[in-house]
Each structure stands twice: as C-alpha cells, then as structure tokens.
C-alpha cells in the first residue's frame, strides 16, 4: 500500500527566548492510505508537534515530512496553506467552529476557500455530510446552540467536506464525555471505512487507542521504547504496536 505520509528523521526544535527546546528528536514513520492511527503518549511527548508536521502547519527543523509525496520543507507558506486546504482536514479538541457562522456555513467554509464548486454543488456536499453526521436538522443553527458532541460532529463534517486524503484529529474526544466520545469515534471509524479517508488522531485515552489500527507511542519526542522504531504503521501484530 502507498504511504500517504512519510516522516523521516523528523526533528523539531522550538526556541523559547534563547533556549532551544527539542520537541521531536528524530521520528520516522509512514502512514498508508486508509489507515486509522492513534498517536499516543503523555503530555509533552511531541504528539501535537508530530500532528503539526503531518498537518503541514509546521515544517521540521531537520529531516523530511512528505505529504502526498510533497516535501513540506520545500513549500512556501502559501503553498502549505493550499496543501492543507485540499489535502488535510482538521478536527480539534475544542471543536474550533467559527462561532458567528451557522453549522452549514462552518461546514461550507473550506469549500468557499477552495473556490471550486458552485453554490448548488456546495450545498449538496454540505447537506450530504451533515446527513452523515446526523445534523441535517441543525444546519441553520449556531455552534453555541449545539452540544459538545454535536459540535464535534460539525467539525468532522467540516474536516471531510473537501474530501481530503488525511484527517488529523487532535485529542478529538478529550472534551467530551465517554459516551459521546465513543459515538464520535464510531463515526470516524465508519467514515474511515466508507470514505477510505486516512485518520490520524492523538490521544492518551486507552479506550480511544483501542479503536486504532495501529498506535504510535511517543515519549520525549521519540518513538517509545519498543515502539515502531521503523515507524511503519503496519497492522497491529507488528512489533512495537500495542495490542488492539
């Protein structure tokens, strides 16, 4: 299977004043199309940094990150933005919906930024997705009128509306109760299955990890001891992978 994301010896350092803080210390992994992967690890282990690199919101200090075959270090800021717009969907821990826009408009927003579809096409796509996430009736509501789980479903719809190759989710269930979190994960899993969309999500919740096809464990910016040092996100039977 083809690797949609390929990370090689990725190092990311942040500077805080004069101090260089290493966030990732050389991570190598491949993600294949259609995968459903969890990135696990304690706070500060580099989960978010790795997601940022894969999500093209940041570039590695050294090493390479290739998304859909494009080396992100060679892309300009604008090109990165365009790459994000067309290739990646984002789901955030706090949902991050635009509070002043309706559910429909929130989902439609990436399509508007893409400027590819006509109004009718957009409406069809948006309503189809809202149908999938069970919020058709709520299309004209404001985010503030929705529950947490509903909001996250809107966010999922927004992430998927451009039909991206990869959806990145940063602790998608952290702000939800366990039942709702379970529903969200079921939804993601179902979309992964039906749409063949690759999902990569960070979490430190054991139950969430258990849904993943593979788990990448991070500690101190490296793949954890006994983790997939070759980084290949292969089926769970591979060494370094947690049992499912």
């Amino acid at each position, binding site marked *: 299977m083809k690797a949609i994301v390929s990370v090689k010896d990725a190092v990311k350092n942040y500077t805080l004043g004069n101090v260089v803080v290493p966030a990732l210390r050389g991570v190598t992994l491949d993600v294949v199309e259609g995968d459903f992967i969890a990135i696990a690890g304690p706070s500060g282990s580099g989960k978010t940094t790795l997601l940022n690199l894969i999500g093209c919101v940041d570039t590695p200090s050294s090493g390479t990150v290739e998304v859909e075959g494009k080396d992100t270090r060679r892309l300009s800021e604008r090109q990165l933005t365009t790459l*994000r*717009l067309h290739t990646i969907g984002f789901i955030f821990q706090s949902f*991050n919906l635009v509070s002043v826009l309706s559910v429909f408009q929130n989902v439609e927003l*990436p399509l*508007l930024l893409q400027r590819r579809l006509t109004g009718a096409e957009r409406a069809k796509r948006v309503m189809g997705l809202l149908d999938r996430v069970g919020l058709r009736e709520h299309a004209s509501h404001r985010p503030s009128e929705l529950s947490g789980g509903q909001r996250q479903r809107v966010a999922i719809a927004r992430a998927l509306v451009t039909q991206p190759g990869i959806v990145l989710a940063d602790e998608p269930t952290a702000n939800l109760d366990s039942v709702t979190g379970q529903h969200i994960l079921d939804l993601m899993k179902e979309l992964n299955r039906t749409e063949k969309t690759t999902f990569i999500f960070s979490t430190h919740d054991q139950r969430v990890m258990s849904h993943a096809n593979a788990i990448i464990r991070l500690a101190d910016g490296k793949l954890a001891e006994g983790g997939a040092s070759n980084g290949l996100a292969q089926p769970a039977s591979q060494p370094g992978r947690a049992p499912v």
Partner: protein
Amino acid sequence: MRAWFATFGVTAQMAFRNLFASRLKTVIVGGIILFGGLLVVAGNSLLDSVVAAMSRSVIGSVAGHIQVYNAKSKDPLEVMGRMMMGDPDIAQLDDFSKVRQSLLKVPNVKAVVPMGISGALVTSGNTIDLALEKLRNAVKRKREARTDVDRANAQAQVDAEKGHVRQIVSVLQTDLKNATAVLDARAIDKEDAEAVTRAASDQFWAEFDKEPFESLEFLENRIANQAADADLLFLNYVGTDFQAFQKSFDRMKIVEGTMVPPGKRGFLFAKHVYEEQLKLKAARRLDQIKEGIDSQGETIAKTPDLQRMVRENVSQVREILLQLDAPKTADFRAKLQRELGSPEKDVGKLLAAFFQTDDQNFHQRHDFFYRELAPSLELYRVRIGDVLTIKSFTRSGYVQSVNVPVYGTFQFQGLEKSTLAGALNVMDLVSFRELYGFMSGEKLAEVQALQKAAGARDVSRENAEAELFGSKAEEAPEKAPRKIEATTTPGVAMRDLGETVGGKLRREETRSRVFPPGEVETGVVLNAAVILDDPKKIPETMAAIEAQGAKDGLSLKAIDWQKAAGIIGQFIDVARTVLYIAILIIFIVALVIINNALVMATLERVREIGTLRAIGAQRRFILAMLVIESIVVGLVFGGLGAGLGAVLVGIIGKIGIPATSDVMFFFFSGPRLRPFIGTSNVIAAFAIVLLVSAFSSFYPAWLAMRVSPRQAMQEDE
C-alpha cells in the same frame, strides 16, 4: 468568479457577524467615528457659513471682492479691523483714472471704486462755547438794534443767555467745591479757581452789560477751557467717490440726511459711530439699557452691565446740566418734580433721582426722557448739517485741517449693529486727499487766495526765521490770543490762529463750492475696491489685475477681501486652524482607541484565526476580513455621523443662530446665521472617517496575519 464572490460574501458575513458579536467594541469605536464625522461636517459647514456671511459683510461694506493698491507700499493694506491709530505706510496711486482704465480692461471686473482710508482726531462741540457764542450774538444784536422794541428783545435774549452761562459757571463752582473737598489744595489751579469765583459773583454779572465784550473775552479765555465737556473723537474714514461707492456697495442706506451730491465736499457718519460716539451719553445709555432689556432679555436687577449704565447715568448728569439755561432749568425742574413726585429743587439731584431706574420704572422713564426732556437737549454733539473740522497729521507730518459739512448718516443693511462694518465713516475724496497731505487743485487755488488775502510774501526758507521773529518792523498780529469770529456750530471747536482768516474763508465757501468731477477721477488715491461679475474667480482675477497693471506700467498689488479685512480676515484662518487641530486630535484619539480595540479583538480571536488558517485560509483572507470590519464600522458610523451633522446643520439653519453681540452681527452678516451644508464637507468627512478606520486596522490586521495555524491547536487550559 462566482466562487470569488461567494468567498467575499462569507468574508463580509463573518466581518459583519463579528461586529455584532462584539457589540460593545463596535459601539465604542463607532461612537468615536460618529462624533468625528459629525464634527467634520457640522464644524466645517458652520465655518463655511460664517465665512460666506462674513464675506458678505466685508465685501458688501467696504472691501469689495478685491482691493488694489500700490505694490511699493511698505505695509499691507487693511481696510477693516484697524486697531491702532496711525496709518499704515501705503504708497499712493498717482492717477486713479489710469488705474481704473487698466483695471476695467481685466475681464470679470465690474466696477472700481477709488478709496483712501485714514483716521483723524476731531474735537466735538463744547457747550460753553456754544452758550458764549449765543451770548455774543445777542450782545451784538442789541448793539445793532435800531428800535426800542428790537433793543428790548435783544436785552431779553442777552439776559436769557447770561442766565445759561451763569448756570454753567455755577456747575463749575460746584465742581470746584467738590474738588476742594477731596483734593489737596495744591492740586487746584489757583487762577482757575479765582476766575470761577469771579465769574460766579453777582458783581461780575452786574458789570457785564457795561463792558460786555471784555467780560465775554474773560469768560472765553478763563472759563471756557475749564468747562471742557468735549471729548476727542477718533474717526476712521474712507475717502471715496460717493456715487461710485453707493452704487458698488448697494447695502449702503442713508439713515438720516441725504447723500452727498456729486462734486461736493461732504461727510457721512456711520450710523453706529454717530450713535456710539456722538450721542449724549445719558441718552445713549438709556438706548442701550432698553436694547438689553427688550432684545437680550436682560434685567437691571441681574445684569451688571445694565447696573453700571444706570450708575453712570446717575453720576454723570453734568453733561445735561451744562446744556440747560435758566428757562430750561426751570422747565426741567417742574417736569421732574411732577414725574418723581419730589419737592427737591436742585435739578442735578432731580436728574440723578430720575436716572436711578429699575426694571419696574425703566420703560416709563425712558419714554419720559425722550418725550419731555430730549427735545430741549442737543442729543448729538454734531448735528446733520454742521460743518466738521477734521484735523489730521499729513504724511509729511504737519497738521492739516479740513472743513466738511455733515450730510447725514448711513448704515449697511443687515449690518446695522456691527461695530466692525460700522466703524468707517465716508468722506469725499478731495477732502481726504487734503487731510492726507496731497495738494488738490482747489487747495492750491485756496492757498494762493489766502496768501493774497493775508498779504503774504514769498519767503525763502533760509530767511523764514528772521522774517518771523527777527524783524521788529512787523507788528504783532493782534492782541487777543483767541479772538474768534462767531462760528455757527459746536462741531468746529478745533480753532487755532491759522483758522481765523482761512477758516472763515473756507467755511463760507465749503458748502457752495463744487469741485470739477475730473478732480475725483484723476487725483491720487491709496487703494481701490474692485467689484467682480463672478465672485468665484477671485484668485484668477487678482493675477490678471497684477499682470494688467504691469503691462500698463502701474505697480499694482491685488489682495482678496479676506486679506483686506486684516485681523478680521485672519480670524477665519485662525478658526479653521483651531477646528482642524480639534478634528486632528479627535481622530488621533480615535485612531489610538480603534487600534487598541481591534488589537484586543484580534487577540481574543487568535484561535479562531488560527483555525481558519489551519483549514486553509490564506493570510489575505484574514486581512480582508479585518479590513472589511473596520471599513464597515467606518462607513456605517462615519456615514451616520456625517448624516447627523448634516441634519444638525439643517436644523440650525432653519432656526438660525442669533447674533448676540455687535461682533457677531458682522460675522453673521445680519441678526442670524443660517448655516448651510456643503456637499464637499460631507464627502470630506466620509473620506477622513474611512481613512482613519482603514488606517487604524493596519496594525491589528498585521498581528492577525501573523497568527500561526498552530495556534488553532492551543488549548486555553
């Protein structure tokens, strides 16, 4: 393209909704912008209206659209708002006809009015001079009387006039008594005191008829100078061609008397000057109190200014007392006793009691004064028809005096109460030239006639001193130092030796003599007012005038009415500067506050902006969103402010701002200012507001553009 519109649509929608979402911020920022827009529109409109009104005042009263004068002048020309005595150094224009010819060649020039502006001191009449003059005439008449009846009549008149003079002397005696009470004895001139005592004695008056002329001379020399109730008047005047002046400044209206006929010497008082400076002070104060009560809603009880005028009227009854001869004194006593119900005999005290007015009795007293007392008084120190002797220092420094008959008073319609527009009196150009030190043809002839009459010889400058003082062969001219031929008016008190011969000659002729019209045309002027067909083209016409002048060999300088108005004209610039500074400050403050509010708003929305960036919004999308927000606020509130300002100006325009002072009358060109809205002001307000709101969003927009998509992931834990 349609997708682009859709993107813009969503950007705008987000901008709008953000504005609604943070209402407080929007209202604060919008409020400031609204106020700024309102100020720009209302302030500028108001100022423009004042400028327009004032230009009507200035252009319509004396300046015309453009003033032209000699470019070689050392000082700038100011036709109005002259605060100091003494003339600016303006070089003359030698031949007005040439100037006129040259100016009329310039397109857009409608009329040219010759002018010269200067000022002079005039001493107005002295009541005792007048009384003594009457007495002298009566004595003379008695001498010349042929029949017993005539003689008896003359004697009766002599007695009456004697009574008046005695009355004046007794007023002086009272003054003297008061003075000895408060002053050190050394401060009082002994000789003056003795003279008054003598003039007040029964013996002096018993002997008066024996040697009347000697007694008169004593009174004239020793008493008259002590009864100095005459004030020095400083009169500003413009010498001009009356007919051209009236035609060009058509707001000019004759109030009393008549226009000076063509070719005649003459003087027209500005009505305002006539009332303010020449009217009997007590009467003038009564007028002002009435004006204060009737038009300004003031009361004597509450307004200090009115109280002051009442006090002054009570304490300054002397100017009235001096006018009263015996019969008038009796008349006043009877009337005042009846009016006041008082047994008091002293007219001075009665008058003081009469002028002690309050809000209850004021109108009755005012009416009583004008009905019963005023007809017996000289209300004005110079009457229409009098000959005014004006003395002035000429350019070369010697004193020149000219007699001009007063034909009447005038005022400019709409500017009746304006001190500034009413400060200039008008005089014929020929007299003006003489006072300014130019020799007119008429004057030259007169000097020759005088020389002939006086038997003067031409004396060279070197020999002048010897001729005057060294030669014993010459007799001293006459013994009496102030032997004065009878004059007819109180307006000619400025007498000196030079006038004893020349003055008489001139006075006789001044009314009847006509100067040739060419003399006005060809002579010297200082400046000229230019009236235009199209007042909007002032700058172009000014340039054309100077160019034409250069072509015709005249060095002409043209200034617009605003500059010609001097300090008054500068007021406009000052007011505009103040307004602009105020607007500038407000908008700087607005800029800071708006900037601050937007920065805060941006910081609050960092995650939202980060999210937008993460899901694929380019930086320019963020920029557009914020700039649209600012511009929308600017447009909506700026428009509202400008609209409100326009409405405000419209309402004020309907009602009008009343002019509450003389100066405002001038600035408003009438009793009320009716401001109008200038379209350019509304557009300017809009532009400024937009600029400011766009400008103030630069920094926050820059901040927002630097928000990293990573910040979308940051949790506010």
